[in-house]
């Protein structure tokens, strides 16, 4: 490990000019940029060496091209599976970005000197395998940008060996009497604009920290320590190469995370050719992409300034105009303005008091300027009247902002962006790439009035593309829910382009070079993780919608595999429903649905055989069972020639008359039979008589009726003998069973609509001979207090003996 090299820090003159100027920074530090520019203007280097992937030189020059607006990011990713990524975000105030800009302006050489991405991604893979048990803070779990490895680690502890250093930082904050480390940092580093102050103190700080933690790090996370040494040896090699290239050492500036500065001086050995050849490599690709402050702020495990990018940009602007004093007023006015926009009025007097309060808070810590935390607390007190919740949104808008970077046409377009643009042009969707939302109605059927196949299936192809984008999570197209009256060939979309969508499409590039490949990869990935039939069926459907027959085939195979293991009845029914829908509009989408039929048959058979057993469940499960039965029935009707429909009806009939299953399900089975005309009047009336006879257990009878009423009520209303039986049944009950049946019946009729209730009242009127209208009136009148009370008593009815 490097001995602390005191010579590196400070503004002492470079003696004999044998050493380059080392400048350690914390990434995304405005003060770092400020002091760096001062140093560059002073030294006027011929070469600026920057910590960053050395194989990204071409992109470095694009980064400073005209028209590039930060925040932007450099994304590196492996060309093979599994995809691993590295992300280097740059804000306007990033020292690295300012260094590149300075070099371009002044005609100096700018070079990135860290390990090339093909090596660092290969090493990252090794590190991650090694340290899975250490549970890294930025371990990847959800998709692209979050899976990004650490790219910058300005200070020790911003490497991902975390915990030890975090404790140190908490201790430092406590000793300094600051509420947290960021406040300490801002007060003691970001606000110090004196000549050389930053460089000297950060260098000293990092050196001491490194001395403190290095031994412990090597013990706890040897692979992390080793990785750092490899990087530093490589950086020393690059520095040496630059020196050998003829640059005057006194006119070289080396810009790295402060953590590394003490390890870069020439007395330590540089990486040899043999060592370099030994490093593992994986093929990688790189691209620039627009980035957003929102992403910068939500990027976890990342260095300074990330929590409030917009605030730090404001700070940077103030610094450049040498007016850091104005920052509190600007910040708090901006918060007040946001509050006013949202309808909460706060006066300028409050802003003034806020600035004063923040100043007083800062003075209590001997600070020169209020920190972000001081300003936020002042805003909470003055604008929120003590409540953070009042100002939280305004603060977030001011801190994070909505800034999104942009890259000019032609700068580092990823293949997938090109592909998307080509596709949009081919499908005549180019005009929808606008910030204004637009509706798009699609008719998936073949248009027979046109000649070419492309235009005949234009809408179908459009639908395929939009489905692929939706699958990739690119917020360009939102599918609207179909109204039931619409046919399967109609789709309705709302299209709206946004800068976020641009970012998302670039991120999708790691999944594939084209939209099609990326979509196929995404489904494939989900398929690997898929462990139940319903999900597999959904994936088949999605693959179909995305026009990916090959992937659909894989999904079918996966479903087949999963279908062998028995699922629950509900799951089986749900899966069949998915398959059935797919088969129905398969022809519209030109999907080969033939391989699905055997699976559907198999599942249908299993569903039929499971019905009776599954129906022996409690009332909670019965609700799910009913929708599953309904789904099975729909499948049976739609594919009556393809599946064993008679078996289904047989099973339903068996269930309908069983007394030992859930009575609601028996009733429900009966209602399906009734609806399908499988139960004639005779069967029905005898079953009604049996169920509703005095000898029958009350819950068997009334529960059965409840299930019966869950489905087609018109089928019930049109059969007057049902009501006669019901009337006789209720009339013949003893008081105690009557109370119990009332609970079921009340629940059953509760779901009826007023119109239906009126019809029942009329029916009963006819049965009683009291005249339809009159009895309707009596039955429909609201309950009085006493009746209500007596019904409420029933709510506490004790079912203990059931």
């Amino acid at each position, binding site marked *: 490990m490097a001995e602390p090299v005191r010579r590196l820090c400070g503004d002492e003159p470079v003696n004999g000019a044998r050493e380059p100027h080392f400048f350690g920074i914390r990434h995304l530090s405005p003060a770092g940029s400020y002091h760096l520019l001062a140093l560059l203007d002073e030294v006027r280097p011929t070469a600026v060496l920057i910590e960053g992937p050395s194989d990204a030189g071409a992109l470095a020059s694009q980064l400073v091209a005209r028209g590039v607006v930060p925040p932007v990011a450099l994304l590196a990713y492996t060309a093979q599976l599994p995809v691993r990524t590295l992300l280097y975000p740059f804000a306007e105030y990033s020292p690295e970005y300012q260094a590149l800009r300075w070099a371009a302006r002044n005609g100096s050489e700018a070079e990135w000197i860290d390990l090339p991405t093909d090596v660092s991604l290969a090493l990252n893979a090794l590190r991650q395998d090694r340290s899975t048990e250490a549970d890294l803070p930025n371990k990847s779990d959800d998709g692209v940008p979050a899976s990004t490895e650490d790219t910058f680690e300005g200070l020790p502890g911003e490497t991902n060996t975390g915990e030890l250093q975090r404790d140190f930082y908490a201790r430092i904050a406590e000793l300094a009497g600051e509420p947290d480390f960021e406040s300490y940092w801002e007060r003691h580093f970001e606000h110090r604009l004196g000549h050389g102050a930053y460089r000297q103190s950060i260098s000293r700080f990092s050196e001491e920290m490194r001395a403190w933690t290095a031994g412990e790090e090597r013990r706890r996370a040897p692979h992390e320590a080793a990785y750092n040494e490899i990087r530093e040896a490589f950086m020393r090699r690059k520095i040496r190469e630059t020196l050998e290239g003829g640059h005057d050492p006194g006119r070289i500036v080396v810009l790295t995370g402060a953590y590394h500065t003490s390890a870069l001086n020439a007395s330590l050995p540089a990486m040899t050719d043999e060592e370099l050849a030994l490093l593992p490599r994986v093929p990688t690709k790189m691209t620039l992409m627009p980035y957003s402050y929102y992403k910068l702020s939500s990027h976890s495990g990342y260095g300074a300034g990330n929590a409030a990018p917009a605030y730090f940009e404001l700070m940077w602007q103030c610094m450049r105009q040498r007016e850091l004093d104005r920052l509190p007023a600007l910040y708090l006015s901006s918060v007040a303005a946001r509050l006013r926009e949202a309808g909460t009025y706060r006066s300028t007097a409050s802003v003034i008091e806020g600035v004063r309060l923040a100043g007083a808070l800062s*003075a209590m810590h001997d600070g020169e300027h209020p920190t972000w935390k001081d300003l936020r607390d002042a805003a909470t007190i003055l604008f929120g009247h*003590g409540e953070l919740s009042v100002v939280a949104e305004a603060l977030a808008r001011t801190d994070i902002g909505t800034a999104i970077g942009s890259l000019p046409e032609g700068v580092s377009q990823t293949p997938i962006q090109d592909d998307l643009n080509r596709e949009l042009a081919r499908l005549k969707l180019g005009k929808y790439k606008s910030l204004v939302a637009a509706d798009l109605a699609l008719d998936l059927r073949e248009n027979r009035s046109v000649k070419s196949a492309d235009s005949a299936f234009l809408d179908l192809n459009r639908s395929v593309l939009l489905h692929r984008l939706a699958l990739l999570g690119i917020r360009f197209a939102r599918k609207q829910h179909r109204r039931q009256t619409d046919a399967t060939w109609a789709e309705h979309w709302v299209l709206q382009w946004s800068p976020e969508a641009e970012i998302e499409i670039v991120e999708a590039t790691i999944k594939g070079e084209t939209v099609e490949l990326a979509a196929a990869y995404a489904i494939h990935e989900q398929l690997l993780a898929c462990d139940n039939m319903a999900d597999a069926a959904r994936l088949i459907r999605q693959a179909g919608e995305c026009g990916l027959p090959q992937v659909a085939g894989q999904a079918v195979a996966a479903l087949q595999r999963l279908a062998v293991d028995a699922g629950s009845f509900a799951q089986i029914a749900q899966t069949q429903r998915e398959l059935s829908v797919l088969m129905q509009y398969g022809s519209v989408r030109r999907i080969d649905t033939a391989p699905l039929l055997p699976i559907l048959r198999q599942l249908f058979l299993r569903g039929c055989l499971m019905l009776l057993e599954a129906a022996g469940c409690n009332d909670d499960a019965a609700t799910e069972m009913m929708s599953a039965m309904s789904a099975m029935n729909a499948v049976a009707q739609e594919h009556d020639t393809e599946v064993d429909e008679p078996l289904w009806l047989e099973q339903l009939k068996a269930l309908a008359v069983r007394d030992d299953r859930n009575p609601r399900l028996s009733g429900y089975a009966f209602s399906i039979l009734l609806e399908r005309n499988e139960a004639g009047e005779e069967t029905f009336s005898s079953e009604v008589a049996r169920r509703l006879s005095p000898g029958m257990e009350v819950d068997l009878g009334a529960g059965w009726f409840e299930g019966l009423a869950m489905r087609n009520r018109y089928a019930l209303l049109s059969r007057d003998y049902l009501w006669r039986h019901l009337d006789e049944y209720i009339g013949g009950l003893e008081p105690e069973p009557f109370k119990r049946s009332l609970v079921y019946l009340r629940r059953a009729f509760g779901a009826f609509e007023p119109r239906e209730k009126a019809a029942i009242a009329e029916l009963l009127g006819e049965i009683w001979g009291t005249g339809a209208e009159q009895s309707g009136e009596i039955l429909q009148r609201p309950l009085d207090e006493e009746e209500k009370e007596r019904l409420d008593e029933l709510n506490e009815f004790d079912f203990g003996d059931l």
Partner: protein
Amino acid sequence: MGMAQKQDVLRLPAERLYAEELEALKEADREVKPAGWQLSPKSVLTFITGGQVGSTTIKPKYIGNKRLVEMAIATLLTDRALLLIGEPGTAKSWLSENLTAAIHGDSSKVIQGTAGTSEEHVRYSWNYAMLLAQGPSDQALIRSPIFRAMECGGIARFEEISRCASEVQDALISILSEKTIAIPELNREASAERGFSIIATANTRDRGVNEMSAALKRRFNIIVLPAPASLETEIDIVRRRVSEISSNYELRAAQPDDDTIRKVVTIFRELRSGTTLEGKEKVKPPTGVISTAEAISLLTGSMALAGSFGDGRISDEDVAAGLQGAIVKDEEKDRIAWKEYLENVMKKRGASWRSLYGACAEMNR
């Protein structure tokens, strides 16, 4: 003042209770003191949050969020009035008294806000005998605590400001914005010396309070004091306050043991938040406020019971009586909520809770 010599008073003001600490801080203070302050802001912070000065240990007076204390001191530094808001038992008055003692050295300029507080209490009134005999004169003027604080550049305290009628609250508006009190009868106005400020406290959740006007709120820097964040903090607060109060009042009973305090605080926290501590079970909260202050008075009450009628040790029956009184305020509903809590939560807590459960269930029959 005669009071100053008396040591045997029921309760000593903070500046007397902690006179030694304040003296030590003054001694060691090398920082700049703002006009009218007897200590520098940093020493005030140390006085409130605790620390070490030379050989003197400064006891922490406000436990919990140090940053809030910083914000309160910074507010007073900017000549703004400070309003502390919080539920009962969040140490509003305690903080207000100690801040005043540390900054100004006299925490006795207090107005207690009640429904009967009138504008004269806020501004000034007259000694009517003298007024009739001599006409308006300085001698006949009876100055309010705020008036006196203005004259000497000190801090006046206004307790429970939201209990006062709105027009009385509004009398503060001109005082806070003009920093003067006009006395038309004497044809002059009294202006505030530098260092003058007001610390008010308010309880927003209680019943029978008046909404504060936006105009008045604007003239305060408002800090909301949170209920203690964790079980341990709350236990700590309760333990400290119970021991302070019991020594003040010379209750002849043993301090409640940690187990009892923990149980009471647990019950209070669960009822307050509506879930059990591990968050698994929902609990029906009672209608009233279940504050830390009530936990403290419950325990001191139990001590008084034990000392006067028992064997000097707090029994589960004493605690149960206290819990019943603190929780069941709105007779029927609270009684049911308390019963449900007893049956659903406490009964299942196992052997160490059984005897307290038994006592509570007996009491709540």
